[in-house]
């Protein structure tokens, strides 16, 4: 009954890679199927939202504020050459809304949330807790994955919005001290410079980044190989892969939305 190992089609590496791609695709399909069948685990979903939000809030507050503050400070000299420091609020607002807020939030979250989900589900996998759910006739995809993916898809846009606010606060503090701009003028200038499409783009980005982080974390966790090493690997590779995908999505979404400008 011993079976020969099947010959690779391309090379072993490429085969593995393609197979991984296929498996990931099947996993996403399965999650969608489960999301729309059976009962929704509302309590677990709320718990995950709370967890994701709370875990990353301090770091996002700090990073957001520093980003806004430093970005303003660094941009001042170039604008000063043209005597255009009054444009600082517009410039920074555009940068934050269009690019920085969703990206900074998602990169932080892929480190904080993605690795957390990968490690948690990975350790549940290797300690057979996922098998235990399955044999007690509870669908682990529905209980563990659907809730986490949905939670990160919803929470990360909210966190991005919060990040933008904090970054603008950092910017305002800087211009208030240096240029003496008041709050009303600051917001008037800032919001005049962004259009609805900027906001929509930011929301689309944040939603897809959030979805990616949750999905990759769960996928890596569910496929953790045995042993404690597998858990570490699942956590680590979910960060690497989700960051990679976030950059790809960033480029793609910016390209597509630019057609509408």
């Amino acid at each position, binding site marked *: *009954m*011993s079976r020969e190992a099947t010959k690779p089609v391309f090379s072993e590496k490429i085969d593995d890679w393609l197979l991984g791609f296929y498996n990931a695709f099947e996993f996403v399909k399965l999650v969608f199927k489960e999301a729309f069948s059976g*009962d929704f685990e509302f309590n677990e979903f709320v718990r995950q939202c709370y967890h994701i939000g709370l875990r990353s809030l301090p770091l996002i507050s700090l990073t957001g504020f520093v980003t806004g503050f430093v970005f303003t400070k660094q941009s001042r000299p170039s604008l000063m050459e043209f005597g255009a420091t009054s444009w600082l609020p517009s410039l920074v607002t555009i940068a934050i809304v269009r690019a920085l807020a969703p990206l900074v939030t998602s990169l932080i979250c892929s480190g904080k949330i993605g690795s957390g989900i990968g490690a948690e589900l990975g350790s549940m996998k290797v300690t057979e807790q996922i*098998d235990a*759910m399955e044999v*007690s*006739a*509870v669908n682990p995809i529905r209980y563990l994955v659907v809730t986490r993916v949905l939670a990160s898809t919803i929470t990360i846009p909210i966190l991005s919005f919060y990040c933008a606010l904090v970054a603008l606060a950092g910017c305002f503090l800087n211009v208030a001290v240096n240029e003496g701009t008041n709050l009303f003028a600051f917001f008037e200038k800032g919001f005049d410079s962004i259009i609805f499409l900027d906001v929509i783009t930011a929301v689309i980005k944040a939603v897809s980044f959030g979805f990616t982080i949750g999905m990759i974390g769960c996928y890596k966790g569910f496929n953790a190989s045995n042993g404690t090493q597998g858990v570490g690997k699942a956590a680590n590779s979910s960060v690497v892969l989700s960051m990679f995908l976030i950059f790809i999505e960033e480029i793609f979404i910016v390209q597509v939305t630019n057609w509408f400008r």
Partner: protein
Amino acid sequence: MEKTIEIKDLYKSFGSLDVLLGVNLDVYENENVVVLGRSGTGKSVLIKIIAGLLSPDLGQVKVFGQSVPDLDKKELNALRLKIGFSFQNSALYDSMTVRENLEFPLVRNIKNMTRAEIDKAVEEVIDGVGLKKTLDQMPSELSGGQRKRIGIARTLIMNPKIMLYDEPTAGLDPITCQEINELMNEVKERYRTSSIIITHDLTCAKETGDRVAVLFDGKFKYQGTFEEVFSNADPRIRSFYDYNFIESKLQD
């Protein structure tokens, strides 16, 4: 007597690693079958196939007359409600309290239970394993023996007709082992279950097994009562026995 589990010519390999090579085993109603075998012979794989966690390469696996690999998801879940699986490392949900662990399968499989009904069911199984005081603790605060018993209680809450125990006494001191053995015998009487008990521990085999089967080279070469199997002359069985014997001598 009725057969609850019927396994015929079961094969399973992982890639080039052959694990099960023609396993045959029948388990009858209200019977405890002990499965012995060295580490890595595929004992855990066997019961995972019975519970539908792994699929066999070849052969027949029937539980209550239903062929497990051929069931669809719904049928499989219905069958799983009748099977209790006690994992080798207990597999308690470590983010939940003991109470939440026990409720977990119950509230998800039986809809519209009132709080009082749930509490009553929890109380019943936790009393059954004698660990009422741990209800609000986290699994990480429990000892190995307590974890094993909570793991068993979590499966009993669904009133299983079949119990699959994966090394229920591994890593426990002799007195705790004895308590677990008694618990398994109690479960058999109270819930009228048939069970497969995987173990390395011959005291456990002797105390709980109505029948013993030894897994060697991917097959059950020897089956019978404890005395029948161990009066066998096969040196590999004797060595298994002697090793345990020497170890228990050393512990005394």
